[in-house]
């Protein structure tokens, strides 16, 4: 029967191959897979930090460049190593309770216990990202450190952002199967204090401390994951940027200024996830390493264009002011000013403060036209901006974006999806991320050498994929960057937001 079974299976494979030759497998399999990969990569970027690098979507061709996420890591490639790497299950022995303030030569850790079926890292193709915050027991493991944090730097950006870079070294004598992508880096001001709940943003903490009680610590689980093998003595590099928006929303909202003034030392704590053996189960292990140091860099005064901005909230309208977005991204996270990367076109969709610029409307959308291609299921939206003032406006005509909100009644922060592409198409149910913040758009493309004269117009087009018609009830607005005298400084950008009111 073995031969018959083998022959039967081989014939079945050949039948499948014949089907492949005759069926439109590209349409049924490859094209949808490609769309899902793009969406997953987009959402991964969205889900990992306040500043978002974008994947191309649809017609736009560009490479993913991601520098704002949790860590720079190699993909989880298969290995053929002879020595088994230690996984979480190998380390969850001989643990002892760790008490706040206690010191030890053992490895500090946090162990989270989850109900069966509740581990957010269990693979699910249809679930892009779920994050669970928990209060988990603090533990000691073994008798010596397994990891150490080294070469940490904390740099305050001129716009009030904070950049943290570090190395995590495997100081044990065994290879470790670590998951840097699923880990968290915390920027703390009083790491031995007890707090009720630290401020968090995917993969980042900023706040006072991780201690929730004398024996429990905060930990974040879920989102992306990418286990890699870390050999003894080897290290991986991590970097993350806390944007000014993230910092302002934390319980350490003046942290950049205090670091800048030398009033505080920074403590960086990495909670390094150790990969489980097989499917994630009811326990998650995080090894912890910390370093306390003085931050460098200072917050610099901003351009006059940012003076006098007033907060804007969802649904608010004003005739005496221009809607805008104030994006404090940090120059190293701004595609226009960051170090050149290996891609022609880069885009990010950072979280920006929604603001008003008092003094009346500066721009208006004089036309918005749709063209649908039913075959390719693409929606092409063309727009025309017009200078509504009596003065010339200094604008960056290459730095524009079209925002499409398909269900604008969705409460802020509850959009079920989000997509952005490097060509400047940004869409979701709503693009309000909170009552005061919205998705913006920044690009490395720039053309700020001219002015838009009174009555002058500027035209643009964007194509959204996957639409047979303009979505019912959708709203649209165009973003355009304000060119400044200090354009070399990319810490902060002001984007005029011009809604379609037709």
């Amino acid at each position: 029967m073995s031969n018959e079974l083998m022959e039967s299976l081989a014939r079945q494979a050949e039948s499948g191959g014949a089907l492949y030759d005759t069926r439109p497998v590209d349409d049924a399999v490859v094209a949808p897979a490609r769309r899902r990969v793009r969406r997953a990569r987009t959402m991964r970027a969205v889900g990992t930090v306040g500043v978002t690098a974008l994947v191309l979507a649809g017609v736009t061709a560009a490479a993913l460049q991601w520098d704002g996420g949790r860590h720079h890591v190699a993909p989880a490639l298969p290995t053929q190593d002879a020595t088994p790497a230690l996984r979480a299950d190998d380390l969850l022995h001989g643990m002892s309770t760790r008490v706040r303030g206690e010191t030890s030569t053992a490895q500090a850790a946090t162990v989270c216990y989850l109900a069966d079926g509740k581990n957010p890292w269990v693979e699910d193709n249809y679930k892009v990202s779920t994050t669970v915050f928990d209060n988990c027991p603090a533990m000691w493991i073994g008798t010596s450190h397994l990891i150490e944090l080294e070469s940490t730097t904390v740099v305050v950006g001129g716009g009030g952002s904070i950049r943290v870079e570090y190395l995590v070294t495997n100081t044990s004598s065994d290879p470790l199967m670590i998951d840097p992508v699923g880990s968290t880096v915390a920027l703390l001001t009083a790491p031995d204090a007890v707090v009720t709940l630290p401020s968090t943003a995917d993969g980042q903490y900023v706040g006072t401390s991780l201690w929730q009680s004398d024996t429990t610590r905060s930990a974040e689980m879920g989102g992306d994951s990418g286990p890699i093998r870390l050999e003894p003595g080897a290290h991986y590099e991590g970097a993350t940027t806390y944007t000014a928006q993230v910092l302002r929303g934390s319980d350490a909202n003046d942290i950049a200024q205090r670091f800048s003034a030398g009033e505080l030392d920074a403590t960086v704590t990495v909670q390094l996830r150790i990969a489980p053996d097989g499917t994630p189960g009811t326990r998650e292990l995080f090894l912890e390493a910390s370093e306390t140091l003085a931050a460098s860099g200072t917050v610099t005064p901003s351009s006059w264009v940012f003076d006098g901005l007033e907060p804007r909230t969802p649904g608010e309208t004003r005739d005496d002011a221009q809607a805008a977005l104030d994006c404090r991204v940090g120059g190293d996270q701004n595609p226009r000013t960051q170090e050149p990367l290996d891609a022609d076109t880069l885009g990010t969709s950072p979280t920006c403060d929604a603001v008003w610029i008092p003094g009346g409307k500066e721009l208006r959308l004089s036309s918005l036209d749709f063209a649908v291609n039913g075959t390719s299921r693409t929606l092409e939206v063309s727009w025309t901006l017009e200078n509504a003032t009596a003065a010339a406006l200094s604008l960056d005509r290459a730095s524009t974006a079209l925002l499409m909100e398909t269900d604008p009644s969705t409460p802020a922060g509850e959009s079920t999806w989000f997509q952005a592409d490097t060509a400047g198409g940004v869409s979701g149910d709503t693009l309000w991320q909170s009552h005061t913040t919205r998705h913006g758009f920044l690009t490395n493309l720039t053309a700020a050498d001219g002015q838009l004269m009174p009555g002058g117009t500027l035209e643009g087009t964007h194509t959204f994929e996957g639409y047979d018609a303009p979505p019912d009830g959708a709203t649209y607005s165009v973003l355009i960057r304000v060119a400044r005298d200090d354009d070399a400084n990319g810490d902060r950008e002001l984007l005029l937001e011009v809604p379609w009111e037709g």
Partner: protein
Amino acid sequence: MSRWSDTLDALMRERGRALYGYAFVLTGNAADADDLLQDALVRAFKRGKGPEDVTAAHAYVKRAIQTTFIDTHRRANVRPRRDSREADRVIADPTQASATRDALLEAVLSLPPRERTCLVMRYFDGLASPAIAAELGISPGTVRGYLASAVETLRRTHGDFGLDPTDALEGGDEHVVILTKGGTR
């Protein structure tokens, strides 16, 4: 175009037929094979830089087909169903080779996902149980358990066609696997 997209194109151009055939072996119908291959491609390419080249991508996607097939059924909460059929239902004359192959295939497709996957890896890929275990991230003992159960079901439903249960559990090539986890080989 980004590198992962180029690799995906090259993979489907060079190996698409074989991968689709493999998905078809596991699922037994075109619609499910479509879905399985699509899911496997997403798993393989959605993170990081993606596979470096066609060979690596082939290995990734093939493994993703195996694990996705198991996981998809687990997500769908499909419990393994025991086959209660008896051998008297099967083809009486084993010399009717074509009919036997069809019946065998039907029986294979009636196996629970883990057993089916292990059986396909044993008799289509020609892997030994330790190699299957390494691919699927489970223990060799567990694989042997699945194989034993699968073989027992096939023998019960199709009679003894000279199947050697020992060969099923102990045979196969241990040197084919290129993916390992923790040195289980």
